[in-house]
């Protein structure tokens, strides 16, 4: 018995060791995210930011869904931020909610930031960013097509990869309807 207990104690020591030196890049990114949070909250109220942290080494801010467009517009236009270039937009189904993330870059300040927001899976809906960044038009259409997020205020929201008769959202985790794919004529195979 005592022999069996010894290896059980060993892994318990490991996490403590790993937690001891935090990555300085992550610490710096989190600190920067907190700074940006303060600046957003000064403008849009205390409830605008729900979470801060770091995505690997990039500052991460999670925004309340109803403030999504306002805060991103603020990050683009404010003199302190000037995040004027969208590098990436991606949606992910986390089973409890759908998360939309954009990676922003500031041409002027050479700085990066990750901004996210969450929306419930049933009745997934978010304000569209296309009026702010015309370059996310198709990205939002893709998220709508494959993940089923409705974008409020999008000028041209329709499927982009799948055809119009397609049922369901393929990138959702519970999507398994491969056998009932409608054909071009709209009838199941």
């Amino acid at each position, binding site marked *: 018995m005592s022999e069996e207990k010894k290896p059980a104690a060993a892994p318990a020591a490991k996490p403590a060791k790993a937690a001891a030196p935090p990555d300085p890049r992550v610490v710096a990114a989190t600190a920067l995210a907190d700074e940006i949070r303060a600046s957003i909250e000064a403008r849009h109220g205390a409830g605008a930011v729900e979470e801060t942290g770091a*995505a*690997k080494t*990039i500052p991460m801010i999670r925004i309340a869904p109803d403030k999504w467009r306002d805060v991103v517009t603020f990050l683009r236009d404010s003199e302190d931020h000037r995040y*004027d*270039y*969208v*590098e*990436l937009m*991606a949606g*992910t*189904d986390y089973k409890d909610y759908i998360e939309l*993330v954009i*990676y922003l870059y500031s*041409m002027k300040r*050479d700085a990066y930031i*990750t901004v996210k927001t969450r929306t419930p899976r049933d009745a997934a809906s978010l304000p569209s960013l296309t009026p702010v*960044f*015309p*370059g*996310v*038009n*198709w*990205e939002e259409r893709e998220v709508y097509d*494959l993940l089923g997020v409705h974008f409020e205020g999008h000028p041209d929201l329709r*499927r*982009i*990869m*799948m*055809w119009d008769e397609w049922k369901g959202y*393929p*990138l959702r985790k519970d999507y398994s309807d491969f056998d009932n794919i409608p054909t071009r004529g709209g009838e199941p195979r």
Partner: protein
Amino acid sequence: METLHSEEMILNIGPQHPSTHGVFRLVVTIDGEQIVAADPVVGYLHRGTEKLAESLQYTQIIPYTDRLDYVAAMLNNYALVHTVEYAMDLEIPERAEYLRVIVMELNRVASHLLFVGAYLLDLGAMSPFLYVFQEREMIVQLFNEICGARLTYNYMRVGGVKWDAPPGWLAKVRDFLPHMREKLKMYDALISGNEIFLSRVRGMGVITQEEAVAYSLSGINLRSTGLRFDLRKKRPYGIYDKFAFDVVVGQNGDCFDRYWCHFLEMEQSLNIVEQALESIPDGPVLGKVPKLIRIPAGEYYTSIEGARGELGVYIVSDGKDKPYRMKLRRPSFVNLQILSKLLIGQNMANMIAILGAVDIVLGEVDA
């Protein structure tokens, strides 16, 4: 006097049209010869790569990336393994990094060559397309020798590359460089000053800097407007900080600048290959990587300067050996959005000239 009555007409181009570079459909509304509206329809090549990746281990995804931008597959390979390596903080053997840079830059040259040929073909000049295939064939042969495939390379691995260069391969690349430089001069002399070509592309499809940034354009589409934005310099990945090269920028953001940037970038790529050949060390080509690759839980995004722009891979991991979600930032897909804006008000005859200069590969647009 009454004005002449005109009627709008809808013209469908594609999806199977030789000038759309693949299966791409464009529905244009024309009034006489003038384009009133253009609606690109994509998705004909959609294979669900992102969905497929969710049930594949990281090494198994690499061949799928070959099928995205199939004329620059080495860069796609690298974009994926680079994100995995970044997530795992892996050290890559020096020789592997050099080999990667050599094949990536050669692939960029091959891809740009194909652009030049195909663009001229779009504009009605048949022979340049056949000419550039001679040099492209040499590069493809070199790739065939190093990885056994001409188009779908599957060459990179997490932690390095699959094969070391076979004996004599580096010398062959070295011999290829002066030949390629000479041919570039010839093509330049044949094409760049051609009166007919110039009058088709000068001042055509102009993109301003503000538009380029707002539309998230990247690569040559962005640089042709004069913005010095190249990820190899802005955020040097791999060993790109070791090489001296210039970021090629345009001035006017028109079709000619986009063509011209492709040309000049080939020279810069050859310079990088030359420097890499000079200092490539001996050693292993694959680092110590666990057999089953697991990324720590979290989300990761890195991007590289692909042949067509910012090529990025976003991975959400839950700590397992397969990605929970993988999103590909495909430059062709993002760049193509500006097309409908560029076409409005243009003459119908200019449509192909503008589409061709955006430089898309449909495998990448549709993923």
